């Protein structure tokens, strides 16, 4: 395992089930220290991709490497320094939480059994550690899944929907835990449906739809470049609205509660302000309002779904090589 190798590097990853294409040439680049959001609608291929990363299923084409090691070639050695779970974490219901962790620690070796008390305390399951997992709630099992992952002292943590089924307090605690782990230098690959959670935690994201990556890059870049909104207040909003609607590059302009609302790229907004000045309209306020991840997610996935060869509005050109080269004939079919 190279210390300098990327935690996750996938190239041209494909998974076919007979005629069904679940994952369609996915490239991923998770760098050390990233909290990397892996987003997509149900059936987009997220879990299938994570299963391939963990060596649970074999790619039909392409490779995925964890710290430079391909699980297909290296087997369990590829998972050194890697932990996590896909879908819900599963345990032996007839064993207690402690016994489950003892089993997993035995399968980890490397002194993992000495950390059982510590990880139980982290996820606050110590008082219930002697109880059989069969009687655990969903949230407790999720927490036990995190504990099982921490036993391995991972440098890369792969979590598939860790907050699913948790109550609001549980979600908050899970976010807090992930944040703390990231602060300790653990790289986190987080698949989630909780867009606010991803927005809050992640610095880089990949958005997949129908088996393909439609965006990969910094979340800040996506939000900054991807169809930002602006609030505009001028000395004459009615005329300014007319100018904005006829200005090339302004995708949408309308009256809002406090002035006008525009959707445009940053460069076009600059040109609009000059155009307004030429018309003798004074700009009193021009305030950018970054699009939320949720806005961008729906724009990317729904627009990409409508036409796989067309760049979604407001999405940076060149950020989506997979989407740019895809053809409708290779559209993936949903696989849970």
């Amino acid at each position, binding site marked *: 395992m190279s210390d300098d190798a990327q935690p996750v590097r996938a190239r041209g990853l494909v998974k076919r089930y007979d005629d069904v294409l679940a994952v369609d040439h996915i490239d991923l680049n998770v760098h050390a220290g990233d909290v990397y959001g892996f987003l997509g609608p149900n059936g987009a291929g997220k879990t299938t991709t994570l299963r391939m990363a963990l060596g*649970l299923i074999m790619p039909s084409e392409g490779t995925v490497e964890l710290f430079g090691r391909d699980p297909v070639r290296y087997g*369990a050695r590829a*998972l050194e320094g890697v932990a996590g779970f896909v879908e819900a*974490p599963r345990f032996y219901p007839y064993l207690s939480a402690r016994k489950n962790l003892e089993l*997993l620690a035995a*399968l980890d*070796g490397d002194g993992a059994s000495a950390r059982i008390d510590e990880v139980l305390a982290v996820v606050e399951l110590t008082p219930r550690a002697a109880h059989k997992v069969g009687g655990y709630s969903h949230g407790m099992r999720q927490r036990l899944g995190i504990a099982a992952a921490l036993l391995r002292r991972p440098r890369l943590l792969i979590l598939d929907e860790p907050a699913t089924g948790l109550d609001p307090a549980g979600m908050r*605690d899970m976010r807090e835990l992930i944040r703390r782990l990231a602060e300790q230098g653990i790289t986190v690959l987080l698949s989630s449906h909780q867009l606010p959670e991803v927005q809050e935690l992640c610095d880089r994201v990949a958005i997949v739809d129908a088996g393909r990556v439609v965006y990969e890059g910094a979340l800040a870049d996506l939000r900054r470049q991807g169809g930002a909104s602006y609030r505009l207040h001028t000395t004459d909003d009615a005329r300014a609205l007319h100018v904005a609607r006829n200005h090339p590059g302004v995708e949408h302009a309308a009256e809002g509660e406090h002035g006008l609302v525009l959707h445009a790229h940053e460069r076009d907004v600059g040109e609009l302000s000059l155009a307004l000045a030429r018309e003798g309209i004074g700009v009193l306020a021009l305030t950018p309002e970054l699009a939320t991840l949720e806005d961008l997610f729906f724009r990317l996935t729904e627009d990409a779904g409508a036409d796989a060869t067309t760049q979604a509005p407001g999405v940076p050109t060149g950020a989506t090589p997979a989407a740019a080269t895809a053809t409708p004939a290779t559209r993936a079919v949903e696989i849970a």
Partner: protein
Amino acid sequence: MSAAAGAAPAAPSAGARVRPRRPSVLTVYRWELRKLRSQKRTYLGFALIVLLPLIFVIVEHIHQRQHRGANSVFASEITRSGLATPVLMLTFLVLFMLPLVAALVAGDILANEDGNGTLKTILTRSVDRGQVFAAKALAAMTYAAAAAFLSAAVATVAGVASWGFHSLISLSGTTVSAPEALLLVFAANAVYLIPLLTVASIGVLLSTVTRNSAAAVVATIGAVILLDIVSAIPGLEGIRPYLLTQQFEAWQGLLRTPTDWTPIAHSAWLCALYALPALLAGYLVFLRRDVAGG
């Protein structure tokens, strides 16, 4: 899991990292046995195996029947020596009951984990698939062996308690002293393990391939029954020595004077021809299969 909870175990720094010591097949095997010990199904199989000799001895003890003219020399010996009981039980249990008990665990051992999603849990630790497969196959065989010897032990204790620890008449009509007969009883069970472990191997293969516990258990027992039926079809006498079910009687060679090793040696190589391809096929399937359950 509040913010107040202790910090998570720190990831090792790149500079401090040493190659972790990985667990052996023996470690995985020990945990497979611990899992078996924690499941009710394990004891259901053992209960079947224990109850039958007990019921047999109780019924025989009540009736105190003499078995004059019975087909088996051991059946006529039943009330003369307690050591005849485990031999007679072996005769009764070999074809169906012990293979059933072996199949209960062997057919379930991988399919159950696949269905419950725990296979992905253990395959994302520091053990290779080959280690997991080997440990599970060994655990299934250990269970089958434990069932056979438990049955022999219970039948011996119950028989001796009822009819005493006396000499036994061998299949050749010679008298075998009680201590030697006891040794032969357990040696016979050891020889019977050869085809029984073969059944377990087939069960492990079917468990791997079908990913369905019930299907694997039924298919394993179905295969044994099918081979037994085939062996009874007139005109197929030529293939009979090569059928797995015929090997269930190889242990009788030990109870002849002098010991007839021919059926035992035949059973050993023939069962290897069944078991080794089954295990190899199961191993290869398991190495490459997708683990998508759970």
